[in-house]
């Protein structure tokens, strides 16, 4: 078994007198998709924000590539190769795809006073990277606002991959998408995984998780209920763990097993 890229050990996070995370352990290996499942309020967001440097853990250690680390800011995490694609995507609808793609990391050419934004290079790279992800843009100059939700998600993922992410954290990438768009995003996750990048896929949809996940960790009320490998767990078990068992089983009965 390969060594994990990122290992989170017994992470605790307290906000005042609220214990948001009560000892969560989690790791990601290169080339796998590790799904983090949990219902609303389970602590998924707090956990990934800790992983991506937005929050600092109250207790517990983070190990990246075998070394203990503490991230003071998201920038530190990014430099360590941990990229996060948030639900709001950090995209600006009025700006072109290329300008969004390189936002904050614009390519330049020329010297001194003539140092300038390299629009041709930005456009070429954007088209190229998007094609690799299976999306043919009409032109790199089209505004992000004209793209569909799934395509925007893909731009965000392609951007993270292009800028050297070793671990890609996806915060509910499929939650607002239609069926076809979801399939596209899941296919993108698969592509990214095959490049040797570790993917952390956060979702509360068990079916989406089962489609691409290699391992599954369920969070409930700030604690992990264990990590299961693909093939050793059924969707029903995951569903139960997420909801905390009992009531869900009854509910599901009354809904005819459709949830």
């Amino acid at each position, binding site marked *: 078994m390969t060594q994990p890229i990122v290992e989170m050990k017994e992470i605790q996070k307290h906000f005042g007198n609220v214990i948001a995370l009560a000892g969560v352990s989690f790791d990601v290996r290169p080339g796998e998709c590790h799904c983090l499942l949990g219902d609303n309020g389970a602590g998924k967001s707090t956990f990934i924000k800790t992983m991506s440097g937005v929050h600092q853990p109250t207790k517990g250690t983070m190990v990246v590539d075998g070394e203990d680390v503490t991230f003071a800011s998201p920038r530190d995490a990014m430099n360590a190769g941990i990229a996060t694609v948030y639900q709001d995507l950090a995209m600006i609808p*009025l*700006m072109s795809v290329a300008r969004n793609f390189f936002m904050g990391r*614009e390519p330049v050419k020329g010297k001194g006073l003539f140092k300038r*934004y390299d629009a041709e290079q930005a456009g070429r790279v954007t088209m190229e990277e998007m094609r690799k992800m299976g999306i043919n843009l009409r032109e790199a100059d089209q505004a992000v606002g004209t793209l569909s939700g799934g395509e925007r998600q893909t731009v965000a993922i392609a951007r993270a991959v292009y800028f050297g992410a070793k671990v890609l954290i996806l915060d509910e990438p499929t939650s607002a998408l239609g069926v076809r768009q979801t399939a596209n995003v899941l296919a993108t996750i698969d592509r990214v995984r095959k490049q040797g990048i570790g993917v952390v896929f956060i979702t509360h949809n068990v079916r989406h998780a089962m489609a691409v996940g290699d391992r599954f960790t369920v969070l409930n009320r700030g604690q992990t209920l264990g990590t299961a490998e693909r093939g050793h767990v059924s969707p029903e078990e995951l569903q139960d763990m997420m909801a905390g068992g009992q009531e869900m089983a009854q509910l599901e009965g009354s809904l005819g097993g459709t949830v």
Partner: protein
Amino acid sequence: MTDQTAQSDERIKSVPLMTRLMTRPELGAIAGVILVTIFFLFTADSAMFTLAGVMNFMAPAAQLGILAIGAALLMIGGEFDLSLGSMVAFAGLIFGACLTVFGLPLILAIPVTLIFAGMMGSVNGQIVIRTGLPSFIVTLAFLFILRGLSLVGLKWATGGSTQMRGIREAVENDFLAPFFSGEAFPALFTKLADWGMIATFKNGTPKVQGVPVEILWFVALTVAATWILLRTPFGNWIFAVGGDSNAASNSGVPVRRVKMSLFILTACCAALLAIIQVLDAGSTDARRGFQKEFEAIIAAVIGGCLLTGGYGSAIGAFFGSIIFGMVLIGLTYTGIDQDWYLVFLGGMLLLAVLFNNMIRKRVTGER
């Protein structure tokens, strides 16, 4: 399924040139200039479109434009500065005081004025950034504060008057003065007159002695601002910060630094205008720049800037300012009552906002 999308999508039509042009922010302003030109070609005295007439309306257009370019950049960055007009009066006071009270040469007085204005701009910026209050309300406060300070300061500096004189005498023979006042290239225009290429008075001196310097500053600022916006990483950050500062910050754009620079830049534009106007008039008073903040913002909006930020252009603000100058001066060449100017101003603003809204929907593909 994904392989299908990888080929070209049959549902995307190729985009006709007209639609492509429609998404440019400056289109509205250029169309406006054409319309206004046509209007005056029919109604105004033919003198309006002679060289002298053009210089006549370009001079006030340029003075407004120097403010409008700054205002446009700030608006694209998602903020307003309503204290621009008062800043002109305040910077005028500082500049005048430097020259007459402290007797500084221009080479010192100009940097001092720019530094003071920049400092006031950074105060605006700091308050907006640190408190998260809308810049609209913060700079509205400074509209009054700076106007009041200008009044108080003028009385202090002149011993009770709200007008400060004696500036022309103070800068006589200063080697920097020609860069900020009067007309540029007089020799060229005399030559052109000699060759009979431009109109002259009976005694042979040209009717237009040169290009008013504010026009050169105006053009230079437009070129510089356009270069920054479209061809530098900083320009990309301006659009990003105005479009969604949270997203920009998540992507590693230094949001605070960008906004601060824009506030300072805008204040410095106001100071530059103050320097030009004060040198031109030879005096300064507390009403300088009165209500110019609104005109500058209107010119920026006519030029395609969205009130919500993240979209616009310096070239648009350039043409927006020219529309102002043409109408303000153009009406004097017609038999129309000049006070229609204000009606026109409001109407133009309304049209521009409606038009911009439509363009934004086109750009983002909203329906």
